[in-house]
């Protein structure tokens, strides 16, 4: 029918054109008006959201829908893979480190997601080893104040959350029904604006600050561990345990090994000398591992530094210590299995897989046994792990990134 409406246009005479124009106009109006009239007798497609729908709109949304993010803190391993994957840094995870004895090695004191800035791309969901972070089907969260759009999955900074330790080889992880956590966290429309202190106020607070509550003294702990490591110097499994204590213990795999055991074992076996692979452990893990390795090499626990280590200036201290020994790197002195433990210990131990190995263990094995030379891969460990790994494997400081 449509084609019949558009016959090829020839150039008719004046009267012919006149009549033809009138005819075409009438004909096309006839068709068009018939179409619009027929819609008077059809059911409008509109869904009368929100109140006149058969089922709540949320239940009609497909399962893959990318709504507000939700983190189940019960299965979060603190590997921070989501934080690294986020292209726009809407996820902020802060980790408190402990010695693994009196306090857990890693505790999350902050897991904030700014859903006002989130672009719902889903890239954070993909690397999560346990499926803890997920998009929900929640999409209604309008608030009067922008700042109220931040979801705080650790409700209280004074009560840090201990990360989940997934059982070995697990493929499914327990998870509470999707959406419940986020729904509980969404603020009311007229919730008051959070009273953010100004920068000056916080600076004052920091100036008065003592070491973070619950924070450990990495230098002291490092010396403790070093002493212990010296005592079990030749017993690789025990040494591995000591080394693992210095790690974050999230089994994130960011170090390239499947878990913290892998990394620490690699270091213990001497297969891995990098101490900077433990991403969740960060600077603290790195400095502790350094201390242990240095003491293993030199045979003596490094002495108390002159100034109190409480200033938490762990990284410079560790570096200072790292420079002290002039012997060959641990990779050459330690047997492979021990090195493996040492290396594994240097890693963050979150098993995050960021290093392209399945877990920290894999990366450690890669370094120690398979000749992997790239020591920069432990993302959760960051700079600390890098420094450690280079120290262990090459005996040098890592090149600047």
């Amino acid at each position: 029918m449509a084609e019949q409406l558009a016959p090829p246009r020839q150039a008719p005479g004046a009267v012919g054109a006149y009549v033809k124009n009138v005819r075409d106009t009438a004909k096309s109006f006839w068709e068009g008006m018939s179409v619009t009239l027929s819609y008077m007798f059809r059911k409008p497609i509109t869904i009368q959201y929100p109140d006149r729908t058969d089922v709540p709109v949320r239940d009609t949304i497909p399962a893959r829908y990318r709504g507000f993010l939700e983190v189940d803190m019960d299965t979060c391993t603190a590997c921070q893979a989501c934080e690294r994957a986020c292209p726009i840094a809407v996820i902020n995870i802060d980790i408190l480190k402990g010695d693994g004895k009196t306090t857990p090695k890693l505790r999350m004191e902050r897991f904030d997601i700014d859903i006002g800035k989130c672009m719902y791309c889903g890239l954070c969901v993909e690397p999560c080893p346990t499926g803890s972070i997920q998009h929900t089907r929640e999409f209604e969260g309008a608030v009067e104040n922008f700042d109220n759009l931040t979801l705080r999955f650790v409700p209280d900074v004074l009560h840090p959350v201990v990360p989940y330790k997934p059982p070995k080889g697990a493929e499914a992880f327990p998870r509470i029904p999707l959406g419940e956590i986020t729904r509980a966290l969404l603020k009311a429309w007229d919730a008051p604006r959070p009273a953010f202190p100004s920068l000056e106020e916080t600076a004052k607070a920091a100036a008065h600050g003592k070491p973070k509550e619950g924070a450990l003294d990495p230098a002291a702990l490092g010396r403790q561990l070093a002493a212990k490591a010296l005592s079990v110097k030749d017993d690789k499994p025990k040494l591995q345990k000591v080394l693992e204590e210095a790690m974050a213990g999230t089994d994130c795999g960011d170090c390239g090994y499947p878990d913290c055991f892998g990394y620490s074992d690699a270091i213990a076996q001497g297969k891995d000398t990098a101490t900077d692979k433990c991403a969740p452990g960060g600077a603290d893990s790195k400095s502790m591992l350094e201390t242990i390795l240095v003491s293993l090499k030199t045979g003596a626990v490094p002495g108390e530094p002159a100034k109190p280590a409480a200033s938490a200036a762990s990284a410079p201290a560790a570096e200072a210590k790292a420079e002290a020994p002039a012997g060959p790197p641990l990779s050459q002195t330690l047997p492979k299995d021990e090195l493996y433990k040492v290396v594994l210990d240097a890693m963050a131990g979150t098993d995050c897989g960021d290093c392209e190995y399945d877990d920290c263990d894999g990366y450690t094995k890669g370094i120690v046994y398979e000749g992997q030379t790239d020591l920069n891969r432990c993302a959760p460990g960051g700079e600390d792990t890098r420094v450690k790994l280079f120290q262990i494997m090459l005996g040098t400081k890592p090149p600047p990134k």
Partner: protein
Amino acid sequence: MQEWIDSLIRGWGHDPATWPWTQFLYLAFMGLFAFIVINFAAISAGIFSWAERRVAARMQSRVGPNRVGPFGFLQWVADAVKLLLKEDLVPAEADSVLFRAAPYFMMVGFACVFVCLPFSHRLIVADMNIGIFYIIAVTALIVVGIIMSGWSSNSKWSLFGAIRSAAQIISYEIPGGMALMIPVLLAGTLSTQGIIRAQGGWPWQWFIFDNPFSFAAFFIYFISALAEGNRTPFDLPEAESELVSGYNTEYSGMRFSYFFLVEWGNMWVMSALATTMFLGGWQLPFLSPAQFDALTGFPAVAAELASLAVFAGKTLFFVFVVMWLRWTLPRIRVDQMMNMCWKYLVPASFAGVIFVAGWMLVVHAVPWLGWAMRFVLTGVATVGVAMFALRTMKNLRDTGDKFDFSSNW
């Protein structure tokens, strides 16, 4: 209405010619009628604004305003209240006197038309013997208002809209006026009631089916009326996608609402005029005007109401058609608009007047020819409507939809 007031005075025992208060009573009733008519215009415009939105929505597979009152009917009240309460802004650079005055010019030009518009057999403010002439004359006042608003806004978009509107309305008054001359010729009077009385209650008695030229004249009038009312496809003065909002771009609040009141109220005017001139107005079948005049008591009231219903029904149908056109057609360009007027409608309307004059002579000589033509045209129109209905049903089924007029309103 003068006779009616006079009879009222006589009923009180005075002679209208000598009673000293006659003129005051006339004045009081004038004020009363003006009040009624303007309120009728405003309320119908408001209701049309709601109706247009519902109709448009349904045609576009949407729902439209359906929350305020039953079927959203009170939406127009809410909108009116909102517009009245909004701040009435005058741009700093505008000519504030003209800017403020422009809407009233439009209102005057619009409201004056109602003086001559019939509603039923007896309901008309004043059945002037030059009714059509008067209507064409006063509607021109709207142009003055539009140009004033466009010029005084000191906005280029408004100016564009105003100039377009002036060109458009003035141009289309010619074919529109000429097309209206055809029923005038057929009826032999300029009075609106007179023209209705010259027709009849049955479709074949209407002027539209009188002869092919009056049939064409109806469409010429209708197109011109669309243009004068700034309705799609002639909504160039307020072409939203080109001129933002045309001449009323800078208006807000109550003054803005006047513009829209005029636009929607005009739909009644153009439809009522079409009904009057071409479609037999309030004429009832089986009841000739003379019989109608002779009725008294309850039958008179009933017939009056019936004629009112017939007139309103026809008018509202055309109001619907105007809306329907608006939500179907694209807008034409300004040069095409001019082309269409001067190259198509003006010659056609002039030719129509001449041919109708000739046709009247023919029918005068051969009366059965007139009746035959009336029945043929009525038959053609009936077949056309039926075909259209079938086509519409086919459209509906072609896409696999069901006939559903009741749900999701």
